[in-house]
């Protein structure tokens, strides 16, 4: 059983909602990415989404765009990021890691070579924002190397397409809470609930919800009907001004602690 599947099985068994923080690898302090990942786990992360910065992040809002620009300015690229995952794995062999990013860095490294190195480093899943099911051939080497390809479902995904997405997805289904870019203030909790309910008709996999979730209150509502909640832009923004590693890790814990508590309270209350 993969680390991702294992983790979702544990969450289901203990009736907890998963917390998935997203950070842009190398931002704001490249040398502290591994320490930050460990801090996320301490703060209650069940899975870590590690963003691979790209020069042209078409699906991202300003917060993650700027984080990517900062990381790129410090020379952060796939090879270094895989090194950080390897380093993280020296002390944590259970927390699943999903790399999230865009196709071009993978294409330039070569999908097969990337997959081999990613598996070796201890990456569990890959979410390629601009690689939908139509282009499954491009990501086939990732799947054959044993990486789980996380797929997105969106409010624009029709029922017919949802069936295709669900049959190709692995690990968990990432439901995009609105039609828009990451970090936008557009979330409508009712429509997210309806969307997740629709996805569940087809999805055998756990469903995580992401895009635009900013605080414990929103996370708590979504945690009532989703298997996991992804928090990206709000966390990245909070971390962006950290001056050193201690501050970075403290900020991460301070930000995630109330969200973790709210998620746990939500399930406790609904029981």
């Amino acid at each position, binding site marked *: 059983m993969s680390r991702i599947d294992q983790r979702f099985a544990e969450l289901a068994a203990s009736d907890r909602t998963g917390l998935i923080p997203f950070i842009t690898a190398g931002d704001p302090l490249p040398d502290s990415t591994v320490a930050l990942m460990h801090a996320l786990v301490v703060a209650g992360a069940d899975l870590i989404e590690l963003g691979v910065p*790209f*020069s*042209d*992040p*078409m*699906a991202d*809002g*300003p917060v993650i*765009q700027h984080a990517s*620009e900062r990381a*790129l300015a410090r020379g952060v*690229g*796939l*090879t270094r990021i895989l090194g950080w995952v390897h380093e993280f794995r020296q002390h944590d062999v259970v927390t699943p890691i999903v790399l999230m990013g*865009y*196709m*071009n*860095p*993978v*294409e*330039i*490294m*070569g*999908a097969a070579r990337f997959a081999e190195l990613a598996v070796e480093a201890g990456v569990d899943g890959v979410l390629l*924002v*601009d*690689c*939908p*099911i*139509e*282009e499954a051939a*491009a990501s086939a080497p990732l799947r054959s190397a044993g990486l789980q390809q996380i*797929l*997105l*479902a*969106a*409010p*624009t*995904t*029709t029922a017919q*397409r949802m069936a295709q*997405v669900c049959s190709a997805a692995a690990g968990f289904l990432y439901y*995009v809470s609105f*039609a*828009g*870019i990451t970090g*936008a203030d*557009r979330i409508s909790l009712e429509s997210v609930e309806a969307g997740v309910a629709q996805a569940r008709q087809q999805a055998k996999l756990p469903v995580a919800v992401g895009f635009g979730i900013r605080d414990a209150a929103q996370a708590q509502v979504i945690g009532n009907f989703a298997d996991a909640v992804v928090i990206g832009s709000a966390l990245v923004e909070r971390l962006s001004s950290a001056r050193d590693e201690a501050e970075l890790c403290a900020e991460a814990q301070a930000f995630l602690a109330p969200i973790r508590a709210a998620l746990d309270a939500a399930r406790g209350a609904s029981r």
Partner: protein
Amino acid sequence: MSPSISFKIPGEAVDFAAFPDANGHFGAYGGSFVAETLAVPLAELTAAYDRLRVDPEFIAEYERDLKFYVGRPSPIYHAQRLSHEVGGAQILLKREDLNHTGAHKINNTIGQALVARAMGKRRIIAETGAGQHGVATATVCARFGLDCVVYMGATDIERQKINVYRMKLLGAQVVPVTSGSQTLKDALNEAMRDWVTNIADTFYIIGTVAGPSPYPRMVRDFNAVVGREARAQMLEHYGRLPDVITACVGGGSNAIGLFHAFLNDAQVRIVGAEAAGDGIATGRHAASLSAGRPGVLHGNRTYVLCDDDGQITETHSVSAGLDYPGVGPEHAFLKDAGRASYVGVTDEEALAAFHRLARSEGILAALESSHAVAQAIKLAQELPRDRLVLCNLSGRGDKDVHTIAARERITL
């Protein structure tokens, strides 16, 4: 990655005009590399376009606008004095610069605006580099009564003030893009972000043969009128096809527009002129096909300019319209298939061609098109006088006089 799909059957001629396939792939290139949110809207666009492109009423309206609004057909002009000066083959110019708004771009924006209207979309967005596509989009939006928002890099807004003002005069809203390198590629990113956010009522008019499927095909089809006309005009006025055809290639819409009708004429040599900027060896250029590698950018697989980490690199060209780190996937396909060749033309060569054409023929070519003129001159020099080189003069140079003056240290 290397092209994985073999399209060459030994002993059999390839039907180059038959691409892309049903999924928008030109061999290994093209496709639809977009976020999930856009997948269904793109499928809807594909279905609408495939219905409209064979609809006699749609075709008739498109052709009527090309004739009475754009001013088509554009003539082929024999640049006799230039040809004589060069001393080689005869240089013929396809005069897309004479179109309404001054470039080939309007062939595409009229077509897409008609598609938008048929789909019931009232809000149009577009990206622009030099401002030519933005102006052509603002123009057709005024013509059809549609709302228009144009994304333009902050750097380009500074470089192309006149076109920014033209767009505003036409009723468009011009939104400065301050992310990334603040140029065309970033404007495209921002337009995509707008589109994914306002998908229900918004139509994205992409200005070149890039983007996700069906854009490379649709934009090509709307510009292919250039080559269809040119091919018929060659047969009518010269009794034969040209020996070589050439056009400048940034994203590649005017080039594919000219090339497409000639793809299966094996005797016609096809040469694209890319922006070599300060010279390809300097790294300051925008020659994706000559110096890039296959990758994925803006929704399609094509040749891109990027570093070893896959990060898109900044480009340079004196002409803002060629200043783009990718290229239409069909050009990538034609390059690999050996059907077309692509060469770099430097800023200096393009400027020299600009002046030479102005002095010998009384035509101010756009800086983009001046790259094609420079390449036509090179090709003509290598060929005897009885040969014909057809060059797409894709746009007029009025928009560039300030740039040229500034470069030559002349205060206007």
